[in-house]
């Protein structure tokens, strides 16, 4: 169980720094980069949560979250590119 605490606290450090970049980014692209990083970290964390809670349903949630986060990144990039 000590391994879960170590892994979750390391992931929490990454989430914290990506959130700081998401809130305080100078341009809109910095915010989208922070959001992209945050999405990958959250996908990995949901898979880890499936192991900790012994429930296979979280893997389906992780698959759907990965699809939606990819669509979100592409949409934001297209929108910011077209806006000039």
């Amino acid at each position, binding site marked *: 169980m000590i391994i879960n605490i*170590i*892994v979750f606290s*390391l992931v929490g450090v990454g989430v914290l*720094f990506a959130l700081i970049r998401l809130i305080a980014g100078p341009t809109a692209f910095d915010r989208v980069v922070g959001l*992209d*990083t945050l999405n990958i970290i959250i996908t990995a964390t949901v898979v*880890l949560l499936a192991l900790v809670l012994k429930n296979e349903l979280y893997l389906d949630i992780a*698959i759907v979250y990965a699809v939606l986060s990819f669509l979100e990144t592409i949409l934001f990039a297209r929108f*910011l590119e077209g806006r*000039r």
Partner: protein
Amino acid sequence: MIITSYILMIIGAIFLALGGFGVFRMPDVYNRIQAGTKATTLGAFALILGVGFAEPSWFLKIALIIVFIAITNPVGSSTLARAAYKSGVSATLLQKQKEGEDK
């Protein structure tokens, strides 16, 4: 088997933390894209593979998630970098070179 999964999970968590720290610390949009994408891709690979080693009956869905991240993550980051370049976000290294030429 369980020791392998623990080692992989700790490696993955370290790389995820380093990816978040790189996104926070780098000076430029392109540097942030590079640091965030590469480090977090490796970290997510290792962490998810560690979960797959701990529960071998889940390996099909785990492999599906890994393949999906391996395909979509570079595509998303390169689309983002192309959008940033086309809308005129300048890189700090290019700015320094231009300032050097002006002087």
